């Protein structure tokens, strides 16, 4: 009986030690610096992946008039009458259908000035969807 008892005891002690060792763990969790670098770049990680995809497109196609931050202060804005609207803030358009049709068919299609061109034939559906998502995210910003 004695060896068996000893054995049981040994197993119990080992199990306890193992569970204790597991619980303490390493002090600092190893990170993913590459992922962090990309997240940090995309406006402090504030944007989701799809929004940041939209941001890339916005900067290329829209920012000249609408401004890098979407505040309607792009370098070409002063040439426009009426000027481009501020897209930030809670009052900015959020409706997917509305945003999609403005981007796809141009501002004239929603009864506004013809100055914002239709992108439906130049950009893919995917790109327009990203832009819509990004425009929605602008609503989270404080207006100018």
């Amino acid at each position: 009986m004695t060896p068996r008892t000893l054995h049981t005891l040994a197993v119990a002690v080992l199990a306890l030690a193992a569970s204790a060792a597991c619980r303490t763990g390493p002090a600092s969790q190893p990170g993913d610096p590459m992922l962090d670098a990309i997240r940090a770049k995309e406006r402090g990680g504030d944007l989701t992946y799809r929004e940041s995809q939209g941001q890339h497109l916005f900067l290329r196609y829209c920012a000249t008039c609408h401004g890098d931050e979407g505040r309607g202060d792009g370098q070409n804005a002063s040439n426009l009458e009426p000027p481009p609207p501020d897209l930030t803030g809670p009052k900015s358009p959020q409706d997917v259908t509305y945003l999609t049709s403005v981007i796809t068919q141009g501002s004239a299609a929603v009864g506004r000035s013809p100055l914002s061109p239709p992108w439906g034939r130049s950009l893919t559906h995917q790109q327009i969807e990203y832009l819509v998502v990004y425009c929605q995210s602008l609503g989270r910003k404080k207006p100018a």
Partner: protein
Amino acid sequence: METAVSEPRRNRVANWLDAVRRSVCRVGWPVTDKDRAAAMISSLFLHIHPARVSRHALKPTYTFALGLIAGILFVVLSVTGLALMLYYVPYPPEAYRSMKDLQFVVTFGIVLRNIHRWSAHAMVLIVFLHMCRVFWTGSYKTPREFNWVVGVVLLLLTLGLSFTGYLLPWDQLAFWAITVGTNIAAYAPVVGDRVKFLLLGGHVIGPMTLLRFYVLHCVMLPLAMLMLISLHVWRVRKDGLSGADIRTSTEEEAAGVFPASTKTYGLMALSKRPRASVESRDPNDEVFAWPHLLYRELLVALGVIITLHVVSLVFMAPLEEIADPTRTPNPAKAPWYFLGLQELVHYSALVGGVIVPTMIVVALLALPYVDRGKAGAGRWFAPERRVANGVFTALAAVFVALTLIGTLFRGQNWAWVWPWK
């Protein structure tokens, strides 16, 4: 009236059914001692047992049923192995994919694989323990020398089966364990490289190796194993169980382990063998195999199967990434039962790879013909065999220690590690 009419008809039906039953099974559920003996003798499967067995041999603490457990494990492995073959493709990388399928999509696949895996490990362990038991009880002594030799070959076959099965999942663990294992084999002088080349079907482990190991694992080795197990059991039956002449003590009788002996003589103790064990046996100290032996065997079988299920539901069989010849894990370890050898190879390739394994096998095979004294057979740690037991125990302990070191205490670059750190 009604019963009167139906009575003969019912009898006819009953008789007919009884005739069918008798055509299959000559003896019914035994009620008398004669039937009990007949049940054992007339059945192909049951007559591997004698009709009557010595009470000494039935004591669980005498054999610990190790041989029986090994046999049960072999049956479990055969059944689960056959089932697994239905979903296994012996070609890389599908081999690995079929492991994943067993885990993820085949109903009961993972339980089956776990049972197969853990049974295989258990069988190696149990066969080894069985051998130790036989040594410690001196059961290899005349007239059982040859059966010891058969047993040693069975041990080697068990290792071979486990080793060939180890490659089949085609994961990193499998690939590198077999790489290490076959390279240990390659240390054998003169023939080593040839053997390795034949075993691998090439210079490196590849699709041909997998196919070879598959055929060895599923057909050749199991067939050899089956034949040798038959021989082994047949010899047990013919040579008799060791220690049959040892009377159980009176205290045990009083404890009611077995019913009190009576003076009934077995009918079957009439065979004419050179050294018929019958003469030396005391009929008073025997019981009928049915039910005393069979019932206990059934219980052991149930216990083994239950244990295997519990283990398989709780512990998953290991499966690492798919085999990649360009990425050697560190450390690369052989299957655990070869880690004692690998540990020795770490010190000296010649010693670990050639001298020690050859010595072990030769010594084991020659043992019963060298140690020919008759004293002490059939009892655990008989004082007459103090020296033999001492030497064997020491060697076995060293081997177990080496295996434990190789398994638990060796980390990256085969450096010493403490497993709890």
